[in-house]
């Protein structure tokens, strides 16, 4: 079974167009609670379709989008990606949801680097989000970028070894300008302590993170140091797991994530075993549908255009 979906083009605060997909749950009274899923670095709408299936099954409407200045259909090139532009996108999308779609409430889900962005969003707009769930949330941007690309790109900027913000170099698979590092430093995204600062600002928002114990890009020790100081942050550590969820880890991780969201955004308790798994055939169908979206230019994609400006 595939849920009804709508394709949107949201014009953000920087006038760039954001491609978004809304899927409506087939259970629960309307208006339903809604979850916005922010894309991980180098990921698109399609990459989070499995997460969405777990949430739709629990009565959440789910909106996913492609970030601007990134891979995917939204405007801009990934060369110009910065965490601040990712935050702008997330806040634009959240505003669009609140104003245009009027859900019962709004929560965020994000993976990896987008998790760091979601924490900043919760810090910036206290009370706006019922809760924030993340997977492999990056808590020390400088360290994660260093581990992921083998170069201390953020440190190079903060310590003056790199000075040209327009110089682009490969991060994981794509070249990204050093403006990423400049903005990370200037807008205080770069360190564990800036994350803690944001967590303190978001102290009234329930937070949850799934962490792979053997994640080479995000230190479990770092995360637990933050958890020690952040009582509103719940953490699930998956033994032996790494940064990306896979078929063996995703079922448990996503059921925990769904349970957290149900408890916090729907105020109801649910056992893990009661959270249904997506069927294989449905995953095949949805994956093919979303691959076809990736091949369709944004201009041909619009169903409804709306302002997302804050």
């Amino acid at each position: 079974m595939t849920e009804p979906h709508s394709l949107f083009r949201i014009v953000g605060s920087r006038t760039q167009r954001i491609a978004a997909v809304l899927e409506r749950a087939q259970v629960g009274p309307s208006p339903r609670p809604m979850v916005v899923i922010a894309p991980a670095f180098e990921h698109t709408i399609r990459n989070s379709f499995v997460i969405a299936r777990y949430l739709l099954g629990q009565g959440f409407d789910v909106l996913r989008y492609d970030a601007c200045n990134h891979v995917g259909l939204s405007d801009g090139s990934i060369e110009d990606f910065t965490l601040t532009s990712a935050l702008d996108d997330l806040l634009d999308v959240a505003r669009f949801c609140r104003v245009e779609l009027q859900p019962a409430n709004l929560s965020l889900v994000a993976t990896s680097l987008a998790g760091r962005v979601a924490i900043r969003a919760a810090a910036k707009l206290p009370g706006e989000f019922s809760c924030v769930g993340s997977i492999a949330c990056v808590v020390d941007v400088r360290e994660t970028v260093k581990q992921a690309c083998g170069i201390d790109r953020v440190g190079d900027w903060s310590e003056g070894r790199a000075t040209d913000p327009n110089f682009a170099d490969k991060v994981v698979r794509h070249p990204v300008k050093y403006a990423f590092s400049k903005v990370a430093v200037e807008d205080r995204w770069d360190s564990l302590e800036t994350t803690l600062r944001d967590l303190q600002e978001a102290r009234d928002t329930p937070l949850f993170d799934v962490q792979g114990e053997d994640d080479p890009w995000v230190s479990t020790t770092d995360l637990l140091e933050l958890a020690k100081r952040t009582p509103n942050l719940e953490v699930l550590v998956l033994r032996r797991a790494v940064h990306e969820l896979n078929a063996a880890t995703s079922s448990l991780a996503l059921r925990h994530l769904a349970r957290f969201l149900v408890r916090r955004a729907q105020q109801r308790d649910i056992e893990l075993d009661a959270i249904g798994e997506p069927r294989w055939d449905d995953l095949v169908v949805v994956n093919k549908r979303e691959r076809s979206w990736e091949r369709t230019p944004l201009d041909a994609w619009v169903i409804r255009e709306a302002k997302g400006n804050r």
Partner: protein
Amino acid sequence: MLQPECQELVHAGRRDRPSYGAALNNVEYADVLGDLDALIFQGNDGYALDSTSLRELRTRLVRQSFAWHYGQCEPYRAYCSRAGVGPDDVRTYDDLVRIPLLPTSIFKKKGVSSVAAAEIAKVCVSSGTQGGQSRIFRDKVSLERLLGGVRQGVNLLDDEVDRDRHVFVLGPDTDQAADLWFSYVLSIVDFLHPTTFYVERDVFRPEQLLGDLLALDREVQPLLVGPPFLVAELAGHAISQGSRLRLAERDALVITAGGWKRFQATALSREEIDACLIEGLGVAPGQVRDAFNMVELNTVLFECSSKKKHVPPWLFASAREPVSLAPRSGGEEGLLAFCDPAARSYPCFILTDDVGAVSDEHRCDCGRWGHTLEITRRVARVEARGCALKMDRTLAVHAGTEGGS
């Protein structure tokens, strides 16, 4: 100005990766990942293990799998009982050859499953064009492990893991592949990479494929996958059209799978296929690789840069003497047998119709350690035909060329 706890954090020496310390009531731990899934999904490098570690790991995985199926699959347990072998009899690496093997013909006669019917996600079938049709009951876990193994196999094909790729499948998409195993596997590769399919309503469209190759973003690596007769047809079409494709510049890979089947008598040798692909598509000679799979097996074996089919660390492969089923020595020909713990929903302890050899453990020229597999030929039984044949026949009938090449 940092808050006091932030300052404490900065000076906590976190890069020393200290132990986690006292339990926190907002932190929960979960054990979710066994050795098998860590190998398949997390890319733990089994080819880097030394001989002792590899044998220990493989023994543990196959034993666990044997115990699972012995406990869950009543017909298999009865079969084992008749053979007088149970989980307690399989303890060491040398004991693995004692695991009772199911001839693949069993799957043509009988449904064999280790899980409840509700857990079956896909009933996968062989072609059955020349005889019975194997029916393999796969659950989601088995299908996901199959895909995870394919993803790892791509790493065997190409050492550069994080790369944008586009897969060109010389086969149909899922809706037209139906349950036919080889076509189905190819059709779900789009979980891993963007994929386009070039058999539509049983018609192969080489012209469209060549056009799409030309239009592909230069940064993206093309991966062409299909049965050898269609790969040869594509190359022939490109030559006849005077194609100027230079896919070597794009580091393109061509992966053949499924064999020649009906065209065995007129099959091109690998060298001849390579020559066609070099001439027609400008593929680099080392970039044409073969893969081995069959509907009853839950792992695909890929060739490395030295064109050797590596046996993944979880899979136990052996060649057997055809009558006694005694294991052959390394490199000696025999009937190929597999114990594949990647299959959860059916006992994948199988004796195949394929003749081949399994090498002793050795360091391959590609740098990997372990066994490699060589397929020699298939035993000539009427029912022993693969899915490539079905695809071949379907295409031939549609094109009105049945019986010709």
